[in-house]
């Protein structure tokens, strides 16, 4: 929208304000569109000059109902899933070997000589043979156990998509990597079949079982970040927490400690099924309902302070970028401004804070609802998104038009009225085109029929016309409903 020139802005704001204001009853009736025309015009005249009443009316508009949307989890393509599964496993094994070489040196020579495919089965065999060792190690170092679990999850994340948002194990996939460590230890120690399962686990996901690492005094890998949330706002909050309060490693150690505590509670679980059930609620947030804050809320995220002549709209605009869902609560008008203060100076009143114009205009670019309801009311063409509030959709320019009929098909809207007036919108009522039915047409349009790409209108004089090209040309129909044959 073009900007208004300074003079016009100044003169518009300096128009005299009426001495009296409409009472709340009248303003309410105005908002609810139940005022008679004469009174309505008076209120409009007042609102045009009175910023106070404009603000009151704007604030007392019925709010937008809260919407709840369900964000589906993006499923990675099979190609990536296949590729990253092995890439992740190999990468982790390589890192573990490298770390082992660097830190322990000769103590791990035997381990490093083996290639990755050789290591995994060997470790699996050791796992099945050393149940007691595993259990002891798990009991002695819960933190290490938790950190290994974190690594496992991290690899699972990397294997599935490589992005934190999609790093969650998919619900119902049945992959053993989603099992908690206590469950895995149970699997390893139960019988040989379970030992095979553990071997499969090692082969699939790559991490070395914690017991073996502990028994070999291997350095524990850094635990991965906790599972990312699907919702961007939650993920962003967690990221902010990391940035602002803790160092990265502190946060991970804290997470590892929490996991270790949870691990102790899980020792009573007997079967993988129970373990999976225990884990199920955490998968529940794969589809999380996110309440969307009404748009009106975001209006107050941008504070335009005009008292001191300094604008802080930039901060507010930054807040706006955090998405509507996580829009922070607006600053309180009275916050930080004690009403009684011995050193108080008087200042001019200010406007109610509003959204910054840039963000506002960006939001206005959002599309209008696809499905509007259309009808003709008192000769006017009106539409509504909710069947409660009806808005005039077409303002006649110049001549007076009394609409008689309207037909809508998707975004195609056709409306007819007096004096063969026919208007057409191809984009749901945003733009309109007034059509000419030809000199032979007369009377009022009383019926519009849409069939495929054809539009047929009928006038009050009994004429029927059809257009097969979206209203560019019109052909009169004979009495039998067919166009006249060329001679």
């Amino acid at each position: 929208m073009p900007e208004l020139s300074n003079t016009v802005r100044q003169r518009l704001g300096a128009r005299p304000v009426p001495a009296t204001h409409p009472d709340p009853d009248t303003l309410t009736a105005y908002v609810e569109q139940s005022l008679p025309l004469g009174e309505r015009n008076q209120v409009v005249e007042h609102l045009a000059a009175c910023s106070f009443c404009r603000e009151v009316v704007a604030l007392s508009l019925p709010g937008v109902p809260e919407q709840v949307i369900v964000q589906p989890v993006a499923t990675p393509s099979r190609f990536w899933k296949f590729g990253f599964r092995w890439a992740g496993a190999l990468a982790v094994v390589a890192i573990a070997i490298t770390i082992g070489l660097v830190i322990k040196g000769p103590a791990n020579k035997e381990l490093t000589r083996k290639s990755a495919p050789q290591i995994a089965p060997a470790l699996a065999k050791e796992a099945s043979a050393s149940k007691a060792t595993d259990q002891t190690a798990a009991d002695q170092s819960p933190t290490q156990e938790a950190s290994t679990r974190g690594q496992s999850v991290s690899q699972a994340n990397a294997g599935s998509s490589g992005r934190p948002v999609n790093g969650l194990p998919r619900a119902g996939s049945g992959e053993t990597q989603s099992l908690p460590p206590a469950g895995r230890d149970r699997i390893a120690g139960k019988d040989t079949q379970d030992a095979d399962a553990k071997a499969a686990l090692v082969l699939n996901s790559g991490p070395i079982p914690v017991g073996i690492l502990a028994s070999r005094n291997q350095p524990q890998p850094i635990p991965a970040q906790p599972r990312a949330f699907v919702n961007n706002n939650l993920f962003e909050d967690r990221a902010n927490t990391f940035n602002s309060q803790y160092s990265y490693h502190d946060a991970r150690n804290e997470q590892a400690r929490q996991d270790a505590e949870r691990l102790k509670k899980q020792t009573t679980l007997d079967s993988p099924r129970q373990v999976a059930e225990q884990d199920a609620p955490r998968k529940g947030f794969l589809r999380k309902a996110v309440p969307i804050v009404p748009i009106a809320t975001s209006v107050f995220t941008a504070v335009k302070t005009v008292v001191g002549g300094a604008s802080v709209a930039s901060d507010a605009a930054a807040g706006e970028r955090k998405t509507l869902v996580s829009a922070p609560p607006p600053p309180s008008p009275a916050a930080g401004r004690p009403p009684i203060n011995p050193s108080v100076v008087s200042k001019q009143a200010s406007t109610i804070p509003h959204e910054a114009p840039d963000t506002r205009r960006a939001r206005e670019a959002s599309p209008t609802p696809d499905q509007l309801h259309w009808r003709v009311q008192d000769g006017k063409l009106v539409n509504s998104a909710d069947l409660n509030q009806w808005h005039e959709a077409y303002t006649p320019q110049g001549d007076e038009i009394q609409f008689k009929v309207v037909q809508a098909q998707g975004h195609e809207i056709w409306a007819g009225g007096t004096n063969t007036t026919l208007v057409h919108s191809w984009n749901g009522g945003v733009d309109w085109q007034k059509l000419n039915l030809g000199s032979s047409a007369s009377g009022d349009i009383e019926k519009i029929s849409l069939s495929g790409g054809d539009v047929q209108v009928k006038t009050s004089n009994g004429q029927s016309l059809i257009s097969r090209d979206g209203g560019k040309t019109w052909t009169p129909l004979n009495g039998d409903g067919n166009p006249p044959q060329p001679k």
Partner: protein
Amino acid sequence: MNFGSKPAEAVLPAVRELYEKSGAVRFGLTIECFEAILEQVAAKYSPEANSQQKQQLWRELRIEELALARACSAGNEAAWVEFLNKYREKLYDIARGVAKEDSNARDLADSLYADLYGTTEKEGRRVSRLNFYMGRGSLEGWLRTVIAQEFVNRYRKTKRLVSLEEETEEGVQFSSANSTPIQMADHRLGEATDEALDQLGAEDRLVLAAYYLDDRTLTEIGKIVGVHESTISRRLEKLLKTLRKQVMLGLQSRGMNRGQAEEALEADVRYLAVDVRRRLQENRSAAFQEDKGSD
């Protein structure tokens, strides 16, 4: 409530019909009281109306909600129970919608709730704010408007008081001395603009003011005016073109040629030193002062 007494036979049939429809009898309102309330509404909004016009006005009222509000105002227990059941939660929701912040919203709603119950006394009687409800719009809408008014009043009141510390934080001490404003190049520009604005309709001026002065969105303006937002968008574009054209014509009629008029308009954008904020605030301040006495 003392509305005077009147023999029941003298009550108009239309009033009787509305009385039955309103359910006022549940709250102990007599038909005479009810008629007095209707007469009060008619006296306020159509003081010179004849009987038929009055009846037309009464039929357009939210008669059930009017009876409920006035019964509450009169202190009827059953009415208060119904009011609380219907509107107490809504009151907080509305306040939250207006204030956008929980503690302020609760404060706002509690304050209004006290006003509705009636804290001040006049001649030994509580004065309830519900006594001002006339039923022209819904009671919920009326509560929303009253809360909005209260919020705007409070906000403006608070914004007038700024501590010296805050001023210092804002860096007032570092601001340069007020420079002499550049005078408007030609007073004819202002006159031509005034003339062009006068030629616009009230609704057009409302749309312009809401968009350019209040920074309202197209959707909000659409709801205020009662048309679709796309209509507002088109109307704004058309208005700007019309305004420019009218100002150009006004300048030319005041002795400028076309080139000079265009130059004056360009100079307006580049050099005009108008303290728009100050002018607008003056305007709003006046509105606030006048509003304090109303209602």
